[in-house]
């Protein structure tokens, strides 16, 4: 059973058609790698799936139900989007890692957060770091923890390794692999040659359309 289905999805903004009649079906537990030229609509597609923008045409189904039928706050906790070059918010790293608990009305669980920091090779003391004082690679790792502290069903990753140093990139990729083995369906946008070579299922997007027809997932 597909966990995610796009039926004839289009997105138009300012008389410009950015996504054109995309059909896509993603099996539960799949790992899709999306690539394509800059400006081809990859981020727009992920944002549509994440319900951060609404298709101007077509339907998106998650677990066989229309996206529009969900409480969107719940939906976004299940279909979690990680931005390309996230900004982080608040003052400290902790503000960011408290947020997933706030969203779910839960008590902050220090142990749970520590475990996740360890996974991305950051010390516990990192919680008190000011967000203005950490590197791009560290920011991206913190951002990713926000998405996966509570495992989503689908993880949408928008060029999360681009511009990262080798060490951060390796840590991030390793974390994504781990998340996938836990059964999370992953859709990852990347330009990275090696990542594309190693990918099982590649979807190429050009000018808002899917180029190759292998869009089946598992």
């Amino acid at each position, binding site marked *: 059973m597909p966990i995610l289905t796009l039926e004839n999805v289009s997105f138009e903004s300012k008389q410009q058609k950015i996504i054109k009649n995309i059909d896509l079906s993603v099996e539960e537990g799949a790992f899709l790698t999306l690539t394509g030229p800059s400006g081809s609509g990859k981020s727009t597609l992920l944002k549509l799936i*994440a319900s951060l923008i609404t298709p101007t045409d077509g339907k998106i189904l998650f677990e066989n139900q229309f996206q529009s039928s969900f409480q969107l706050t719940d*939906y*976004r906790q299940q279909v*979690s989007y*990680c931005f390309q070059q996230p900004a*982080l918010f608040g003052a400290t790293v902790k503000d960011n890692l408290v*947020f997933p608990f706030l969203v779910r009305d839960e008590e902050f669980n220090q142990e749970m957060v520590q475990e996740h920091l360890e996974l991305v090779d950051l010390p516990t003391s990192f919680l008190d770091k000011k967000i203005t004082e950490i590197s791009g690679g560290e920011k991206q790792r913190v951002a990713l923890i926000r998405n996966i502290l509570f495992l989503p069903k689908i993880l949408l990753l928008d060029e999360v390794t681009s511009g990262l140093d080798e060490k951060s990139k390796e840590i991030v990729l390793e974390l994504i692999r781990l998340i996938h083995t836990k059964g999370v369906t992953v859709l990852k946008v990347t330009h990275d040659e090696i990542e594309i070579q190693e990918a099982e299922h590649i979807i190429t997007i050009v000018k808002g359309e899917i180029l190759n027809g292998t869009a089946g997932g598992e």
Partner: protein
Amino acid sequence: MEQLAVNNLSLVLAFALVLVAVFVSSKEKLGLSKDILYGIVRAVIQLSIIGYVLTYIFQLNNLVLTSAMSLFIVVNASWNAYKRNPSTQKNYWHSFSAIFISTYITLGILVLSGAIRFIPSQIVPISGMIASNSMVAIGLCYRSLNKQFHDQRQQVLEKLALGATIKLASLPILRESIKTGMQPTIDSAKTVGLVSLPGMMSGLMFAGVDPLHAIKYQIMVTFMLLSTTSLGSIIAGYHAYKNYFNHDLQLLDEEETE
């Protein structure tokens, strides 16, 4: 009231003060002479009209008319607060409800506590004072909201993507804006009497009321302005942040809100 010596003749003579401004303007080529004279003419006409209207209202001392005059002030203040909102999604009724509620809760407490009486010579000027301060606070609150939704756009988007409600995603912005709306009132409460003698107190002393009596009124005014600006900012802020989102809990494009 004997100390008050403003009569028609002295007003005409005081017109020399306007000529000072006109003289400075023409000497320094500020190009303001016409503006100054136009401003003066408007002020004289508006004040004359309001003088006659108020005299009539005060003499009539009619409950309905007094309330109507107070409401007229609230409607105008709301319109001005509304115009100060830079967002294109703004809604007049948000400003109106904020000023209406903040003004009449404050006024209600003043009347019920016996601090002022429900007579036109007290209700009308106090309504004006409260509503105009509420208007200024709400205007500041709106501008702060707009600036922060612009500056912190990416942060709000990230919070929404993590499944936050629009309120949770806006909370720091909302708090900061409400603070911004209240800040001038709090600041002036701190310096009142040291830096400036506010209008109410000055006016009373001018009219011959002894300072110890005048400060009691000023303390009351400080209380009422704190209450009004906090209520006004909170109500306006909690309405207005929603303007930046659509029904799908998405942050609107900047072109749609600016």
